[in-house]
């Protein structure tokens, strides 16, 4: 089992505000996503890439006013540049690890399933569109399933490089898929489409459902 962060408290855990950001534990063992995503990939993707983003972020906020901000605050206020890039990538990757799980994948149930069918017609149509967006994104980036609070629909969006849906207040992230080459090159080389197949075998619908409910709960409290 693993810790399921709520959307509201979803941030890198800090012991006290003036201490540095910490790389959160993976929600599962490094070999838990094999054979879809190998232990070797996680060793580098989590152990090197994600870790480096955290290290860089700490170096960039040290002895600056940003030191006292939460990760989300930094992402929402930083201008384009290394501070934004590293902060956003720290957040994106944590969201990504939670978007995957061992013994997961397949089709969703419950509210998230209903929403997908309501807005896409069928799960199959949604799956094809998501794969198309993720595979078709040119160069580095991310594919997201979001709830759009303006249209009240679940939608697929892509962001470029370190871009995150967090900077757009109408988007509530439900799932993400990393399409930077480092996410799939060890296991699939240039075949990003094959990596998407692996992603579908690991997609953590419980996390998506949890995120959807968190948004509904937020709305309920506001009204």
């Amino acid at each position, binding site marked *: 089992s693993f810790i399921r962060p709520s959307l509201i408290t979803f941030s890198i855990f800090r012991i006290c505000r003036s201490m540095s950001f910490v790389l959160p534990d993976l929600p599962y063992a490094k070999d838990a996503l094999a054979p879809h995503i190998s232990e070797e990939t996680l060793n*580098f993707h989590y152990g*090197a*890439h994600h870790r*480096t983003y955290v290290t860089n972020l700490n170096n960039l906020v040290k002895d600056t006013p940003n030191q006292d901000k939460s990760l989300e605050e930094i992402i929402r206020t930083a201008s384009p540049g*290394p501070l934004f*890039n590293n902060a956003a990538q720290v957040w994106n990757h944590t969201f990504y690890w939670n978007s995957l799980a061992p013994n997961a994948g397949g089709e969703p149930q419950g509210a998230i399933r209903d929403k997908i069918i309501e807005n896409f017609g069928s799960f199959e149509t949604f799956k094809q569109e998501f794969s198309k967006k993720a595979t078709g994104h*040119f*160069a*580095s*980036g991310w594919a997201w399933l979001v709830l759009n609070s303006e249209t009240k629909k679940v939608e697929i969006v892509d962001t*470029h*490089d*370190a871009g995150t849906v967090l900077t757009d207040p109408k988007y509530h992230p439900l799932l993400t898929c990393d399409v*930077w*080459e*480092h996410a799939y*090159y*060890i296991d699939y*080389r*240039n075949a990003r489409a094959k990596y998407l197949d692996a992603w579908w075998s690991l997609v953590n619908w419980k996390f998506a459902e949890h995120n959807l409910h968190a948004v509904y709960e937020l709305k309920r409290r506001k009204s």
Partner: protein
Amino acid sequence: MSFVSKAFARAARAFTPAVRPIPSVASPLAPGVFSDPMVAGFATSMQSYTLPDLPYDYAALEPVISADIMKLHHQKHHAAYVNNLNAALEKYAAAEAKRDLQGMIQQQSAIKFNGGGHVNHSIFWTNLTPKGQASSAPSGKLAKAIETEWGSVDKFISTFNTQTGAIQGSGWGWLGLNKESGRLQIHTMANQDPLSTAGLVPLLGIDVWEHAYYLQYKNARPDYLKAIWQIVNWKNVEERLTQASP
């Protein structure tokens, strides 16, 4: 062009194969099939780009760049840019023939992505050479220009590597010529955007898309950037400078 002359042009296209203007200077960027006017007659009316051969074997750049990487980089990544470019150009031509402006615009990003990929990689392969054949440093006009700009070749390389290493996501580091000023410049480009869009003539490009180094160097992009200078083909860079200089 009037409607009548356009109609004639369309009819002419249907019955004669297209002849593309032949560049006056042989360049690795010329579509392979069309550089020979005799061969042009056998091609379709659609402009078709081809994957250039590497000037060396896949294993020739070892140990700096592995054969595995070279094979994938050339046969999969570069080949995909060429194929996707041709497909986008076909769709563009079809839209153009119907005067479907929206259809034409829709293909523009694919042409830029894949065309840029083709342009960039075609230059890149010639910018590299096996370790044994590489001269250790630039000479002549190129060396002078580098020293003028950065003081020394070492300073140039460290500046280049710092800027190129800092590229967020996928992109390229370039040494380019500003024709107006006649000066050399280091300039980084995102994605596959060709250096020409920044108004510079490309002389030397280093690919820092992860596919260029990941299998060997993993996330250690700085290590790749340090090592690659062992196989830079300074002669080719100098040739490009000579060709571009007035």
